[in-house]
């Protein structure tokens, strides 16, 4: 039981990081971005090929590039750098003139193209089989499985906390305000000296780096990663989590992720088994989430926690004062 809870908690934590990444792009910058999960996948793949030993010549014909056998932290760092660069390239091109619907279509298609490339070039990431056998960090400590699971959850929570604090700081900074002003009305923002293209691109790259981090954590947790693990559906679920929790609100987004992936995702396991309907769970889970999305959009489109605003020009007072006094 404890193992199961730890596993759910870890997955939800990692998904929360992805939600935060998408929140930067969508909640703050207003970009209808489907590409985020592809970046999670790329982060996972890059972490894999960087931390695994060189491709073994075994009877399965596994093949992948690199295989540098680097440690955990290096793998995460490199994954984040790669996803940042790819975000820069995709963003630089897509943000030039595409908006809203067209941007969504473009990023949606890009996800599918990446999938096709990976399948078509098995020498990259081992095609349809994917990568496996990823080493768990700190495994040399020789802990028993439950304690290790706890430790790994701790690592993920640490990552989530760091990302959260970083994004909170950005949100309340002039950059964050500038981004939201561009989202609200980019023409007016241009009239006040803001370059909508470059600011959106920055948001896009930041989101990409965070997605890469999540990807690295995900593959480390699952120890394998292949095309079956990601698809545009994932992104739609993340969108639901954000809408439910509160677009733009970092805390809300995490809560939304807990609800969508934790409660609904896992809660459906406790439904009685229906004989003769083997796909019932997967289907019912998504139907429930889809209905939830429609309900939230209709009756509480701002989500559980609305986007926070300044009071009298000052950020809401925080309870913890580690990082200095309130001005």
């Amino acid at each position, binding site marked *: 039981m404890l193992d199961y809870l730890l596993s759910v908690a870890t997955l939800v934590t990692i998904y929360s990081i992805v939600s935060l990444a998408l929140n930067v792009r969508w909640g703050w910058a207003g970009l*209808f971005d489907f590409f985020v999960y592809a970046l999670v996948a790329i982060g996972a793949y890059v972490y894999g090929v960087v931390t695994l030993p060189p491709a073994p010549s075994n009877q399965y014909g596994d093949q992948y590039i690199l295989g540098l056998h680097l440690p955990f932290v290096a793998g995460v760092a490199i994954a984040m750098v790669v996803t940042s660069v790819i975000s820069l390239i995709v963003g630089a*091109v897509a943000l030039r*003139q*595409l908006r*809203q*619907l*067209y941007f969504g*279509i*473009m990023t*949606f*298609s*890009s996800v*599918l*193209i990446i999938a*096709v490339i990976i*399948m*078509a070039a098995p020498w990259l990431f081992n095609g349809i089989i994917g990568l496996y056998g990823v080493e768990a960090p700190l495994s040399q400590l020789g802990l028993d499985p439950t304690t290790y699971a706890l430790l790994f959850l701790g690592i993920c929570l640490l990552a989530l906390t760091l990302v959260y604090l970083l994004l909170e700081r950005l949100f309340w900074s002039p950059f964050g305000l500038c981004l939201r002003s561009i989202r609200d009305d980019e023409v007016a923002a241009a009239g006040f000296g803001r370059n909508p293209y470059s600011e959106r691109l920055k948001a896009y790259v930041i989101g990409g780096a965070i997605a890469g981090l999540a990807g690295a954590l995900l593959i480390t947790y699952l120890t394998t990663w292949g095309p079956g693990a990601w698809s545009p*559906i994932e992104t*739609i679920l993340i*969108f639901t989590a954000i*809408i439910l929790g509160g677009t733009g609100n970092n805390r809300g987004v995490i809560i939304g992720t807990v609800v969508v992936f934790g409660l609904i995702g896992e809660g459906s396991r406790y439904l009685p088994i229906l004989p003769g*309907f*083997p*796909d*019932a769970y*997967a*289907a*019912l889970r*998504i*139907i429930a*989430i*889809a*209905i939830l*999305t*429609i309900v939230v*959009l*209709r009756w509480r*489109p701002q989500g559980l926690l609305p986007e926070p605003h300044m009071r009298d020009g000052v950020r809401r007072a925080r309870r913890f004062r580690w990082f200095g006094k309130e001005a």
Partner: protein
Amino acid sequence: MTVLLHSVGFGLVTAAIVALASVAFSLQFSVTTTPNFAHGDFLTVGAYAALVGQHLTNSLPVAVLSAVVAGSACALILNLGFIQPFLRAGAKRLSIFLVTVSFGLILQNGILLLAGGEPLSYNLTTPSFQNVGPFQWTYLDEGILATALVVLVLLHVTLRYTRFGKAMRAVSDNPSLARASGINTPRIVTVTWALDGAIAGYAGCVLAASLGSMTPTMGYGFLVVIFAAAVIGGLGKPYGTLIGALMIGVAMEVSAAYIDSEFKTSIAFALLIIALLVRPRGVISAEIFNLAE
């Protein structure tokens, strides 16, 4: 050379299917300006409904009718049951788009729930090729081409020469002006959705027939191809979309002759991305391809 010609022949068949689905999409978008992400799932519903119809009565006309009715019903439910109430509540366009996404997921997973995820076979005739001019088609292929042509011609005639068609074009061009001139806009919108669903349902049944099987995600997977045709032709420009569908269909089949056919659809993706980069408003922009004239 014959390989090339045969590919073009297959391309025309694919183009016919794509054309049906994407012209319906563009038509609906031009009148309602609501991008419908559930469109692909209308196809899937049509296919499964056709299978059920076939199963129950073993009659092809009934199967096709089931597809058309089912597709139409889904479209009407989406519009009347979801989109209109949302619009009345003042929802933003993005919310409405996400509603269509969710609706599509419900359709898809509803089918998954009821029929399971395994591909169900749908074979209408035995494939035996004949040579028709430079092309090589089966009876099924010819049937697809013929019926698609009939549907598109009927659509064209409706749009240009009937009162209803003219009303549709008026609404798509300028909704408030249309309403002010006494056109019953809500009714036009409803009928447009019904038409869109009907054609999409038929397209789905045809798609399943040409593939020989159907899965719950069949239509959803086809969505990118539909978008590709619609974007190249110009979202909301049915005639341009028709040309776009022709291009996509032929490109897909011709490339399949030279590269692994698994990657057929990636040609559509690539064309879509190029179209989005070069001219997001549509590569084909000649004025005659506007819906309203």
